[in-house]
């Protein structure tokens, strides 16, 4: 109780303060401080869950187990890095001719509202509240996606709103079906929507409706998580949004929607056995990887490349959960963390580079290393990480997933996934060597102050450090999260 409620409230309160102090210089400090507070509370919650086991709070509306604590830490980390970097980035963007001309504090308020809805979704125990929080995150981010005054941004925001609204409506049906499947166990009381209560009686739920509920949740929350073939909104929304928002969408929002789906998966596993939902997850995971890969090869726009890479990595985590062995699940959880770190880094460093070069087209980028040594180094780390190469942590997590798949005896899926990863590696190696090496076309000046590099260095250090050393508590948290999904 002590730690969940302040965590859920920290970001919305920050949003209100950002609006209230819109004109003053304290706004930036409030925005960054609020994000830091979310991360600190999330870490404290994770520590509490590790030492004292899962907790239920607020009359069963909120709860924290290892999975929600891990997700809250991811959201907090990505939120802090994006808010920190966004402070200098949005100040610079606000002067551009395409800027929305929003009232001071409105961007920060919407950013924290989005962050808050993600955190609430992470710690929601009531499936109805989970739905409300995820829908709220769509609404909060749609305005941010449409921030720029250009037709592309309007189109992206429209597609995002419509597709995710239809998806989320189907997820509401999934929630209703699950509630109905529990009527036999709880009667008409509200307990039938609590995830912890449903988990405890899962074997006695009506299997037909649990299967149907999982299917609707897969399509519904899967749309929001960017699983193919429901991913079509994702490259548009993630590439048209302002860069710090792109990072939050790609690294935190996709993970939150995926975990919402995994909550339904966890119930289906306990009710009808693992075969049904795991088979579907393997299929959609592989489909997402297979669909994203060709678009990464031919891509010309840096942010769209990163967006398709998000589809690929989300697909990999989905695949990992579908493979189902403890090792694959551990790898999947680890990959969720690593992808968040690497993708945030890639988006944010791209924001500085794109601003300095004046274009997001990758054929305009060359000689990044020579242009700016620190940005070049960060850029290379991001590329190496996204390609899944050692010594970054993504190599380790991808390797764990593949090994886990072999242990589970699902060789065919592992082979397809390895093929996709190989093509991704070639595509990223091609794009990155062309952009990083060579001579810059024009003299480059970093549009942002050097202090904007600090969150990027932290992310890069984390992504390399986790590749060589995994702290004990973090490993324990991820193992417990894996057992939340599949006992």
């Amino acid at each position, binding site marked *: 109780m002590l730690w969940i409620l302040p965590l859920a409230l920290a970001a919305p309160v920050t949003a209100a303060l950002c609006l209230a102090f819109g004109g003053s210089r304290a706004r930036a400090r409030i925005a960054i401080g609020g994000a830091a507070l979310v991360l600190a509370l999330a870490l404290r919650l994770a520590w509490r869950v590790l030492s004292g086991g899962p907790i239920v709070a607020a009359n069963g509306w909120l709860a924290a187990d290892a999975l929600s604590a891990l997700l809250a830490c991811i959201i907090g980390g990505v939120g802090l890095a994006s808010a920190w970097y966004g402070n200098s980035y949005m100040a610079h963007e606000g002067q551009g001719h395409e800027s929305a001309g929003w009232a001071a504090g409105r961007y920060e308020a919407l950013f924290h509202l989005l962050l808050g809805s993600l955190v609430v979704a992470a710690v929601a125990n009531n499936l109805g509240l989970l739905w409300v929080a995820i829908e709220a995150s769509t609404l909060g981010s749609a305005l941010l996606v449409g921030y720029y005054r250009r037709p592309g941004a*309007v189109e992206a925001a429209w597609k995002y709103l419509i597709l995710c609204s239809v998806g989320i409506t189907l997820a509401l049906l999934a929630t209703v079906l699950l509630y109905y499947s529990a009527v036999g166990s709880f009667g008409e009381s509200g307990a039938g929507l609590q995830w912890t209560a449903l988990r405890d009686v899962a074997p006695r739920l009506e299997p037909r409706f649990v299967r149907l509920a999982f299917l609707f949740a897969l399509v519904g929350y899967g749309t929001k998580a960017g699983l193919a073939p429901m991913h079509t909104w994702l490259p548009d929304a993630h590439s048209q949004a302002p860069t710090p928002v792109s990072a939050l969408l790609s690294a935190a929002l996709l993970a939150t929607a995926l975990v919402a789906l995994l909550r339904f998966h966890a119930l289906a596993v306990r009710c009808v056995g693992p075969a049904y939902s795991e088979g579907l997850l393997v299929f959609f995971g592989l489909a997402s990887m297979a669909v994203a890969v060709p678009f990464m090869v031919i891509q010309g726009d840096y942010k769209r490349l990163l967006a398709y890479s998000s589809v690929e990595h989300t697909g990999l985590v989905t695949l990992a959960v579908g493979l189902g062995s403890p090792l694959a699940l551990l790898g999947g959880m680890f990959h969720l963390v690593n992808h968040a770190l690497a993708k945030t880094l890639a988006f944010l460093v791209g924001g500085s580079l794109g601003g300095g070069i004046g274009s997001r087209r990758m054929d305009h980028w060359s000689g990044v290393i020579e242009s700016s040594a620190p940005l070049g180094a960060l850029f290379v780390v991001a590329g190496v990480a996204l390609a899944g190469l050692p010594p970054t942590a993504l190599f380790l997590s991808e390797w764990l997933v593949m090994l886990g798949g072999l242990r589970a005896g699902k060789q065919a899926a592992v082979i397809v996934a390895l093929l996709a990863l190989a093509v991704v590696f070639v595509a990223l190696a091609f794009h990155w060597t062309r952009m990083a090496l060579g001579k810059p076309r024009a003299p480059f000046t970093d549009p942002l102050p050097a202090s904007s590099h600090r969150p990027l260095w932290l992310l890069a250090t984390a992504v390399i450090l986790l590749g060589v050393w995994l702290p004990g508590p973090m490993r324990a948290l991820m193992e417990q999260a894996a057992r939340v999904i599949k006992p």
Partner: protein
Amino acid sequence: MNFPIAEWLPTSSAINLLAGVFLLSALYALSQRRTAACIAGYAWNSISLGGIALLVAAQTHARHIWFAAALVLAVKGFLIPRLLRRTLARLKTRAEAEPFLSIPASSLIGGALVALAFSQTRELFGAGTTILAACLPISVATALVGLLLMVTRPQALMMVVGLVLLENAIFLAAVSLTYGMPLVVEMGVLLDILVGVALLGLFVGRIEESFESADISRLTSLKG
């Protein structure tokens, strides 16, 4: 707290009648060319949904269902149609584009979808055990009609009408399966839907501003 009319009418026939209005109003929206007429169809759809919820409340004597039914009537029957009409009134282009599929053809497909929904829902759920068994096939049929409306019309605003029809259908499913969800959840869902429609209305205006037409067929700038 019983409702006098509920005692006077045989309630289940009243619910069946309202469920009929629910489906017919959705089909009416599908068969109309003008956006304003479709919004009227949606308003009737919502009012019949609210009526069903009120009758369920009268039968079960549950206070939270009374409250939820009143909220459904206020938000879906009144506020959302009003928002949609205001968005429509703000649009500058008056001429309405031809649908992708002609009106008679989409009406025919709509009829086929209704038949499909009735046959398949019976298969899945059997002859229902709840007092509202008849509502479930109707809710599935309306969901399909809403989706059909979304994909056959070029106007951005019509997509919104299709979406809110789909949401109504899910609400009817919730009412008929479980007598609705806990009140706090229901309030949150309604708030989200209301804000969502307001935002979609805002973006319909912005689409017209950016693309000189409120048709989604122009939205093709983002590819690959």
